[in-house]
């Protein structure tokens, strides 16, 4: 691989990896909106239709 190949590979892989890590960081550290507390749905909608 020549120098140009190295540069393109590092920029491409580095940019998508950085974006991915930043997004995960934001998702994990940004608190969810008030009133948006999720919970497990133990019952499926079938129960509702009975």
């Amino acid at each position, binding site marked *: *691989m*020549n120098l*140009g*190949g*190295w540069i*393109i*590979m590092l920029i*491409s*892989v580095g*940019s*998508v*990896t950085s*974006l*991915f890590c*930043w*997004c*995960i960081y*934001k*998702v*994990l550290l*940004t608190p*969810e*909106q008030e*009133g*948006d507390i*999720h*919970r*497990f*749905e*133990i019952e*499926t*909608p*079938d*129960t*509702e*239709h*009975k």
Partner: protein
Amino acid sequence: MTSSFPKETWNSRIGIILAVSGSAVGLGNFLRFPGLASKHGGGAFMLAYFISFLIIGLSICWAEWAMGRAGGQKGYNSSPGILGAITGRKNLKYLGVLGVLVPVMIYMYYVYIEAWCLGYAVNFMAGNLEFQSGDEASAFFGSFVGISDNGAAFGFGIKQVGFFLVAVFVLNFFLIYRGLSRGIELFCKYAMPALIILALVVLVRVMTLGTPDPGNPDLNVSNGLGYMWNPTKVLLEEQTVGGDWQKVREIVGERSLSNAVQEASTSPRMRVREISLPEQLTNFQLWLDAAGQIFFSLSIGFGVIINYASYLKRKDDVVLSGLAATSANEFCEVGLGGLMTVPAAFTFLGIAGATGSTLGLGFNALPMVFSSMPAGQLFGFLFFFLLFLAAVTSSLSMLQPGIAFLEESMEIGRHRSVAVLGFITAIGSGFVVYFSKDLKALDTIDFWVGTFLIFVLATVQIIIFGWVIGIKRGLEMANQGASFPVPKIYGFIMKFITPAFLLTIFALWTTQNVFGYNIITGQQEYSSYWKDLFIEPNGVARFSVLLIIIVASFIAFLATIANKFKFQNEGENKS
């Protein structure tokens, strides 16, 4: 029409992000993307790829997330319901039919490919895949999928696809039966990290391959990466009688270059030429392939994101979630897939082994590669198992839009809906698997639904978002609850640039791949897909299209008669 919140919801924000990224990450990330990047030259392709990502990928992704969540708040989870409810135009539900048809039809053949991945993983583990030549690898693949004759795929030995098909079909419906959070979300929460870890393990193995054959020093990992990422291409060319220069072969590696220069010096009609990055960017096929890859890779236009987003709550952050799911897909594609498959294939098989179709690279070349490397049995198993996980997370997402639609249109619960969809897809998959000769049914449905209709659906969605809902209201919908807003420039991009770019790509693609018109040479020959239907009729191809029409008609019929889809146009009095 109801305004109650959807009953089912995602359990966590990270859960839906993993589910959406799981939907997007599939075989294309590890097989199709590296094949295209190496074909066109890494630098030029990546430039076109990132431009397409910014113009098409993010725009349609954010539009789908925003429309889906808005539809969910109005009590709709299926594409016909969402488009009808949020636009206030009842006839738009018929365009929404595509959002159910596309994933359901794709599932019918995708589950077959998913079974190949599982079958190859198991056969690697059992030590059945130790190929000495390409012919052996091709023969195994042909026998495994039943390519020789219709009906040949229905075998249930370990070297036949039948058992694996039943197993993956049951797994998919078991997970979908458990529900959104306890089935899809729970599975993706484990499968996606596992997939990334497996990919990293295989990647380390590939990066440490060195030069496996000292007698052929050009075949090494560095040159494999160079073949994929170098911004320039070096070709040995020969002049024809007419004076044009034709490619003889591509050159990678010092010894190959030295041989080519020597060969060129023996004849004035031969030359070694370097194609620069700007010259590669003038190739329209490169732009078409880059845009197509972004398009198919991100699961946009599948009807999946709009459905998944409809289960969000009012103030969930769709801008960040959309970007996170998209970036996870890009990481898997560029950061993992881009370093793994093509360099490995090049290192053992040279350029000839690293080029070819997605399925050829995945199921012919790579099994040979793993057969040739130390501990190949283990790494072959890990690689195909990672493909299997990627395929399951995608196929699950193809079922949920159909489930939601049946629940709403037939007013039945999830379990009954799963049973009805299971029946429909079992018939469809049975059709695809039975007509396995030359994979005709699979190929035909993949072309007309998995490519053509996806273009149509994505175009419909972005036009509805930008022009029917209106870009101002659309961005307000997207920005609700967002930790950062959609950049303002995207208002202009989503309204004008994305539809124009998409329509241009779609027109060029149709001209070339349906009508067979070569824009560069001006020559025309209808594509095999067109010929199969209208010029040299092929029974299986025609039946495949008939199957698409029957399923589309069934969905449209349900959308017409369902009480829940009896929308009123804006301004009409409610009775």
